[in-house]
């Protein structure tokens, strides 16, 4: 009788243990699964809201907005020029948007800034995204340096130095620091107090506006000195320079420039068709020569080349864009002087 009771007691304990463990595993599985689903849903909602915000921001010209977000990390990446942004593994492609941003935006605030990109007609708005916790240090006293300094919004954490700042630059606990050397080369002394920061988090660009075409070199900190130029790319206007300032590296800048020139080719095609209409049916008092299409067709063909590869293997393609942009601008002014319908 005592033996049977002992077996019964043991069986009850084993039974309770097994059932308890099964219930525990069951609920743990459910909780784990739903935690993951809830996290993914939240990320997807933030991504969708961000998509709406960026669309709204990208259609309004020249605006700066500080957007409050949940405290999540937003990563930006371009793999084989498929650019996307992600939050906790949920990604969204840029698609039609042209976004220049650092690889990581941390914190609750996101700065969204748009600038109009014209060549010479408006092609699109460039969207610049960054964090107020990233520091931008502009060095140089050329006209371009002054223009960049006056153009950058006050919402950014930025310093302007006409001469090399050297050890006056202190580590202010920013998670990224970007030096912008305008018409000067990077100086190792400027890194004196930033040696403790991770190499990947301290980067620089050096802009050479006197080169033809004007160029930009990307650098990264290597211990206490700057690396040699990692890559070289090019620009045609101030908006491009600002795009390079906000881009993590030359690859992301180049990929977005490819999208930009792809977009330019499409817009140019519409202007070619419209101008051809005026060329073949000139309004009274307007000569058809006012609507010569050489500049427009060159802009289309060159932008198609740049949409395939940026920077182009033949730099003359970029130079042609710069010269034909100026030519078309003059041509458009001529239509105004003759009180004729403008080309753009």
């Amino acid at each position, binding site marked *: 009788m005592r033996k049977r009771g002992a077996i019964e007691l043991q069986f009850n304990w084993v039974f309770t243990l097994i059932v308890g463990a099964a219930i525990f595993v069951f609920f743990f599985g459910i909780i784990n699964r739903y935690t993951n689903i809830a996290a993914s849903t939240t990320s997807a909602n933030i991504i*969708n809201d961000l*998509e*709406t915000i960026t669309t709204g921001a990208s259609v309004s010209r020249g605006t700066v907005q500080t957007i409050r977000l949940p405290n999540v990390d937003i990563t930006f990446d371009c793999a084989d020029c498929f650019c996307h942004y992600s939050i906790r593994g949920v990604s969204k492609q840029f698609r039609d948007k042209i976004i220049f941003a650092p690889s990581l935006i941390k914190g609750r605030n996101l700065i969204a800034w748009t600038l109009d990109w014209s060549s010479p007609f408006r092609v699109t708005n460039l969207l610049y995204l960054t964090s107020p916790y990233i520091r931008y240090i502009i060095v140089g006293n050329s006209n371009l340096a002054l223009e960049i300094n006056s153009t950058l919004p006050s919402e950014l954490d930025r310093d302007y130095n006409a001469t090399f700042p050297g050890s006056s630059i202190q580590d202010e606990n920013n998670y990224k620091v970007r030096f912008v050397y305008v018409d000067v080369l990077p100086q190792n002394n400027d890194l004196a107090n930033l040696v403790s920061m991770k190499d990947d988090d301290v980067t620089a660009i050096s802009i050479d506006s006197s080169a033809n075409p004007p160029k930009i070199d990307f650098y990264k900190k290597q211990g206490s000195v700057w690396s040699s130029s990692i890559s070289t790319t090019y620009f045609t206007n101030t908006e491009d320079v600002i795009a390079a300032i906000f881009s993590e590296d030359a690859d992301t800048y180049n990929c977005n420039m490819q999208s930009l020139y792809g977009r330019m080719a499409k817009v140019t095609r519409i202007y070619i068709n419209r101008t051809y209409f005026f060329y073949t049916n000139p309004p009274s008092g307007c000569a058809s020569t006012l609507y010569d299409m050489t500049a427009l067709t060159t802009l289309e063909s060159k932008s198609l080349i740049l949409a395939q590869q940026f920077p182009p293997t033949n730099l003359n393609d970029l130079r042609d864009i710069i010269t034909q942009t100026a030519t078309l601008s003059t041509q458009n002014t001529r239509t105004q002087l003759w009180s004729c*319908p403008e080309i753009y």
Partner: protein
Amino acid sequence: MRRAQLKMGETIAIMVVFFFLVVFGFSFYTRVQTSSFQQQYRRNIDLNAIQTVQKVSFLPELQCSFRNVQVDNCLDILKVERFYRELINHNDMLNYYYDLFGFSNITIKQIYPEGPTYYVYTKPLENASFSISTYVPVSLYNATSREYYIGIMEVRVYAK
């Protein structure tokens, strides 16, 4: 022996009731979640419709411009006509703008003086379960005669 059997039966009954409650709670939660997902889906489609309207309203390919200054809510008829012609004649153009507008129909009806309907983009979704239409009043600019007309732009976004 009978007491043990009774105890075992009692335990099993408790377990059955317990799991019944779990299954009931779980199915209730799933239903609530499904309804919440449907609401979220509908919200995303609404947002998508708003985005499409914003994109088309500020597209430089369609907007009026004077000395490269864009005029809001004004569409150049010559640009609109040529834009649509490019879309229907060139697949690469249609594919490119599909990324912008997705499955939607965008038309502009000239209402004053009464005039034609201009097509901007037509890519309806086959077997769409519903569509959202947004109407935007716009100015239509005739660059040849330099006259302005009044039109209504309809942006219809399709969804499954």
